[in-house]
């Protein structure tokens, strides 16, 4: 059986998603340390469980692609790349575990991570938020708050935000940006108030 283009697209999509997820996990893990935040550390843990499933799906997809013997080296490369994203996710989990186990991060760690200007935060979209029912493109989150959404958790699903993704009440948005935007972002998602608009 020849490898169909559709099958291959699935493999590539899955790999890109695993790569993005593992990198997101590192960002979240360092942020959980910086803020000594159990909430963020728990997201890393949830993503780690999700990664395990993704990785299994990915390996099954690769193995079921019906490649020819002479192509096996190329496919081994794919399998190995998948393993690497899993290793990175494990490393992120080890960092988050420091927080989950209540080992208070040493001040040195805070200094090391603070050298980065960006922060990562998570909020749950409340029913009263103006974001509910809007597409990411219409929500103008980055324009309003300076934070951009990295990933959306909906129940046990993780979605990569695309311009057409519709935000629902109960979604957990994980966003990165400069620390100043955090309060505006939280207000916007929790529906407490409209974000403060800068007067021009």
């Amino acid at each position, binding site marked *: 059986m020849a490898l169909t283009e559709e099958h*291959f697209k699935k*493999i*590539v999509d899955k*790999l*890109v998603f695993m*790569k993005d997820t593992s*990198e997101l996990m*590192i960002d979240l*893990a*360092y942020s959980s*340390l910086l803020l000594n935040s159990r909430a963020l550390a728990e997201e890393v843990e949830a993503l780690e469980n999700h990664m395990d499933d993704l990785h299994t799906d990915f390996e099954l997809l690769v193995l079921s692609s019906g490649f020819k013997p002479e*192509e096996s*080296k*190329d*496919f*081994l*490369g*794919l399998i*190995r*790349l998948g*393993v*690497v994203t899993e*290793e*990175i996710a*494990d*490393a*992120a989990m*080890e*960092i988050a*575990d*420091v927080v989950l186990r209540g*080992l*208070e*991060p*040493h001040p*040195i*760690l805070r*200094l*090391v*991570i603070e*050298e980065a200007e960006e922060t990562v935060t998570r909020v749950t979209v409340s029913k009263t938020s103006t974001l509910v029912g809007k597409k990411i493109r219409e929500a103008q989150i980055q324009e309003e708050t300076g934070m951009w959404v990295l990933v959306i958790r909906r129940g046990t699903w993780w979605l990569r935000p695309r311009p057409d993704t519709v935000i629902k009440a109960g979604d957990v948005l994980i966003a990165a940006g400069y620390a100043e935007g955090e309060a505006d972002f939280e207000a916007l998602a929790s529906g407490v108030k409209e974000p403060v608009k800068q007067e021009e």
Partner: protein
Amino acid sequence: MAESDKIEYRPISVREALTEMKDLSEIMIDLAYSAALFNSHELAEEVLELEKRVDYLAYIIDMNTMLAARDAEDAKHLTAVITVAAATNKISDAAADIASIVLKDIGIHPIVRKAFEQVEERLARAIVKPNSILVKKKLGDLELAAKIGVDVIAIRRHLEWIIDPSEGERILEGDVLIARGAPHGVDELKALAAGEIKEME
């Protein structure tokens, strides 16, 4: 296989060493994926060079952290430092694993490369030859970002790594520049560094 370098204790700032390690591990991941996508042995070799530095830092951080503990309370706090250093080291190991895939010619399926190649930016390594016009110039004066759309993200000078070099940093003969930019821009930087072209368009 080459013999590993011996590790000697050296008093250092754990904060500085861990910051360096974190920065290096992040650059390594970027470099390693680029090496895989463009099947670049050059970039893969740089990843392994960085890996040596990170391994060294990991040992030194462990030694200094152990010496810093005076009582059980200290030990508890410092365990977090050791755990984070170990995890950061693991990230750099993962990058080195990607580099090995490339260097062992296991290969990445060409269709995957095609899918990733649409990424507009790429990383590249440029070695500065003695007859290059870049020699002795300050990075800021070269205005590489404005002129050819390339950003030098790191310089390797023998065994030293200069991460995110400042505008005042002077480029020396033999420097290895790690740069990020559009494909034609990084090709131009390589030609400039090799002394093949003498001016920027």
